């Protein structure tokens, strides 16, 4: 047990990859493709169970991270294999391990072509995603960040829709370009640290220490150094999120990806971007973050409104859900850049809620697509008559996405708006104006989702082809059940998640808002809706 606890994160990273090797070996010897999905499911469930041990929790060390491991990787470059989790990454790791088995079950009958390669790529992808969330060495982080591209590229390219090649290449090149500039910034940080302190390092914790103790500042060599580094990191993450003008890869990738790919993309891959901004941009470049905040707030509001408006006119259900992601991620960015505890907690909570809800929406779209092989809204109508369970699930999930109270979307969005309202990052009453502008987005969200639901599920059953549709099977209900449970649970009782993420988020908020330890923190007397 001690062994497992000590190396838990490494085990979590390695189990899926070893699983991938195992299923390839299994195929080489037995050539029985029907067992593949069971084996893959077994591996992902095992990893989920193992990841639950994180909740048991070892004591966090002084730097706030637990389950740490730190050993030299390439000393000649100065990079260490340093991993660990805190309240911020813990939940994202759990989200990853939770979504993966669901994604695997969702492919039960959908993958007919090359199942071995499909499941192997899924497993490798899981390793890379967990690696991203637990890396505390910038080079190792970059490594996992890039490594996650390759399996996704193949998943979209081989098992995707008609435009899959275009979508896959666009996805890869967009993301690669952003992250390569981040690589330059990472190496530059190494040398800035070398010049400032005499030792170069890629270690996040060390860099953080040097910055907070004032031994590493970005004012020295050029006035713009800090800003440029911030932008290099922010570009990589903004493309991943995606923040408004960088979002064009997302609808293509989502629409063309197979259902499991869309689920993973929406639920986890997008979170790498927001996670990266919160973890690295805010703490390493707090000053630049504050200077640039207004840009991101403006872009976030544009993203919220634009995403919602474009979603409204989509004829394709999957594209509609994809654009709704743009809007939701806009909310997350807005919350983060409010630099208030509520806003940032709300951002993290929305990340998790969006993972569950949008993942569920993509699954639901996938169910109907498997039956009818079309996603055109105009092809449907009155589905609630033939598929009542499906319609119920869809409506609940859509409500969660809209942000109906007692469902998970509400908590995060409410916290974000509270945070933005009480923020002081924008001059004067602009904070409140920004909040109101974002609030309009929630109304739009209600419009596009409800309108779509009305057109798809209600009214008369006009299309002949829809009359013989069968309702959800037990397997499909089984996939949805845990997601629906989480939507309700996270909506009613957010306390455990918010409590455990609080110390880490507050620490980041303290650093980014420029408050010194023990300094006076002017905190508004609002505890949040859950009455902590």
């Amino acid at each position, binding site marked *: 047990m001690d062994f497992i606890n000590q190396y838990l994160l490494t085990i979590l990273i390695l189990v899926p990859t070893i699983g991938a090797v195992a299923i390839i070996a299994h195929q080489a010897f037995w050539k029985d493709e029907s067992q593949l999905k069971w084996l893959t499911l077994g591996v992902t469930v095992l990893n989920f169970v193992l990841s639950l041990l994180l909740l048991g929790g070892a004591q966090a060390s002084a730097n706030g991270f637990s389950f740490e491991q730190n050993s*030299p*990787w*390439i*000393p*000649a*470059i100065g990079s260490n294999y340093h991993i660990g989790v805190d309240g911020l990454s813990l939940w994202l790791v759990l989200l990853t391990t939770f979504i993966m088995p669901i994604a695997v079950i969702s492919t039960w009958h959908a993958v007919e072509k*090359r199942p071995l*390669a499909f499941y192997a790529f899924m497993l490798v992808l899981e390793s890379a995603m967990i690696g991203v969330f637990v890396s505390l060495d910038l*080079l190792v982080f*970059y*490594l*996992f960040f*890039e*490594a996650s*591209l*390759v399996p996704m*590229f*193949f998943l979209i*390219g*081989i098992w995707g829709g008609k435009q*899959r*090649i275009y979508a*896959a*290449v666009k996805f*890869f*090149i967009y993301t*690669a*370009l952003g992250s*390569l*500039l981040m*690589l*330059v910034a990472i*190496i*530059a940080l*190494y*040398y800035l640290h*070398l*010049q400032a302190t005499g030792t170069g390092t890629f270690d996040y914790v060390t860099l953080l220490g040097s910055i907070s103790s004032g031994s590493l500042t970005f004012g020295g*060599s050029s006035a713009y150094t800090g800003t440029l580094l911030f932008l290099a990191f922010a570009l990589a993450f903004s493309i991943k999120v995606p923040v408004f003008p960088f979002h064009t890869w997302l609808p293509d990738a989502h629409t063309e990806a197979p259902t499991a790919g869309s689920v993973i993309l929406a639920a986890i891959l997008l979170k790498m971007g927001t996670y990266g901004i919160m973890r690295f941009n805010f703490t390493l470049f707090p000053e630049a973050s504050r200077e640039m905040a207004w840009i991101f707030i403006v872009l976030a509001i544009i993203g919220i409104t634009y995403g919602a408006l474009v979603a409204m006119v989509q004829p394709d259900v999957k594209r509609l859900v994809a654009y709704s992601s743009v809007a939701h991620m806009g909310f997350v960015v807005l919350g983060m850049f409010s630099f208030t505890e509520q806003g940032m907690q709300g951002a993290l909570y929305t990340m998790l809620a969006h993972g569950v809800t949008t993942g569920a929406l993509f699954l639901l779209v996938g169910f109907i697509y498997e039956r009818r092989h079309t996603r055109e809204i105009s092809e449907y109508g009155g589905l609630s008559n033939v598929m009542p369970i499906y319609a119920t699930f869809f409506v609940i999930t859509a409500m969660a996405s809209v942000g109906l109270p007692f469902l998970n979307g509400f908590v995060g969005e409410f916290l974000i708006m509270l945070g933005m309202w009480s923020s002081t990052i924008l001059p004067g009453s602009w904070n409140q104006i920004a909040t109101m502008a974002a609030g309009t987005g929630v109304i739009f969200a209600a419009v596009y989702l409800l309108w779509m639901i009305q057109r798809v599920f209600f009214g008369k059953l006009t299309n002949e082809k829809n009359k013989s549709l069968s309702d959800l099977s037990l397997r499909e209900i089984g996939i949805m059940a845990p997601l629906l449970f989480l939507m309700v649970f996270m909506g009613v009782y957010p306390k455990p998640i918010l409590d455990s993420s609080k110390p880490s988020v507050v620490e980041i908020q303290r650093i980014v808002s420029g408050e010194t330890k023990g300094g006076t923190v002017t905190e508004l007397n609002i505890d949040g809706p859950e009455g902590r």
Partner: protein
Amino acid sequence: MMNIFLAELADPNVSIPLVLPEMLLALTGILVMIYDSIRPGRRRVTGTISMVGLILSAVALFWIWSTPGQQLSAFGGMIVADSLRMSFTAVFLLVSALTILVSTVWVEREDVHAGEYHTLLLFATVGMMFMASGNDLVIIFLGLETLSIATYVMAGLRRRDLRSNESALKYFILGSYASGFLLYGMALVYGATGTTNVTQIALNTETAQFPALLLVGAAMLVIGFGFKVATVPFHIWTPDVYEGAPSPVTGFMAAGPKAAGFASFLRVFVLGFPLVVGVQASEFLHDSWITALTVMAILTMTVGNIAAIVQNNVKRMLAYSSIAHAGYAMVGFVGAGVAKTATGRDDAIAAVAFYMLTYAVTNLGAFAIVTLVARKNDRRTEFEDYNGIGFRSPVLAFSLSLFMLSLLGLPLTAGFIGKVLVFRPALEAGTSLMVILVVIAVINTAISAYYYLRLIVVMFFRERTEEWSQPKISTALAAVLAITIIGVFYFGIFGNNVIEMFSKYPVDVQMR
């Protein structure tokens, strides 16, 4: 002056161990040649002898490398045993060994007279080794000519193929022309500094007779070396020659001679024309060549990548990609030139050597597969010919994808560590010119994703319309694939040992 010569005549300071790797390989070459004239046409025997020679040479090299307290220079300072020489020599030996293994497929398919081929390859390798070990312009030139003449012939080995003839003739004419520039440059540098020894040139820059002569000489050298490593604008020959030459030879030329060119290019410029603070001529010279090479690096990467995008032939694409890679390596080169400390400079040199190693391993792996797929007369080398082979020949397709991702520089592959290493020294200098250089380099990397991915796209994402006969993977080729795949992962994940080994013996020119 006279006294110095006499002193050297009296004690030539001979050290056999120091040139043992070169000697062993040259002897092997002669042995192969003699054997082939007695019993012609025995490919396996000549191939085996060549491999044994390469292995013996490598053993000798590692013996010098790992013997502590080793003498660092001999033959009156003409031959040195610093990390620059050691690391690059290791790259050459690996390239030659892999090339011999890759060629087994091809020599049998095309019925090439393999004895000549192996001899030429070994002599070319000896030439490359002298280019790295020579600390004297004369030795460097001799090495370069030995290499060049051998490769001219190798490019034209497919005598009955018009493209191969064109390739050899083009390479020969342009190559001789470039050699002329190089020699002229060397003469001018000698005229200005009164010596051909690189270490001595660095010392004599302060007292250079005609600083202008030195500058012109250096410019000529840039042209000569620039041709060898195929930097823009001296790259025009590359695509035609690479396309026309037999695939294994192309792989060899893109990895070996390019690395050799970089070895002497680095030695002459970084060590021969260093920045001596306070000496006007030196400052001016240093400034000029740094700027010139920076501009060349930018052009090389950009032109190489953009031209590679529009290619429809895989060999041509790899040729342009090799141009782009020369550009990335030059980022490390320039970084070595602007390094402020001797350690920084040595690390940067080691970085370029490591980059060439990663490039060689990856590229030869890719060429092994291209050779295998190409069939007789290199007929199947278009992108279309790779359509949909992904799951029909999964081993080949996944290996080729891995090599493409490594060329692209994706983490966990050798190419990533190589790129990080060559970008580092330039960023360490921290001047805005260097930062711009690195930023352009990474933007180029993103552009290159397009054509590297294209090969993966056609293999995996497209359907095959014509027939596909599974090519047979021979033992030698399987060995090449195993070595290169392991190499790509090993250098990408556990590269530390190699990097440390590459910077073990600091070069003997102090910074001033």
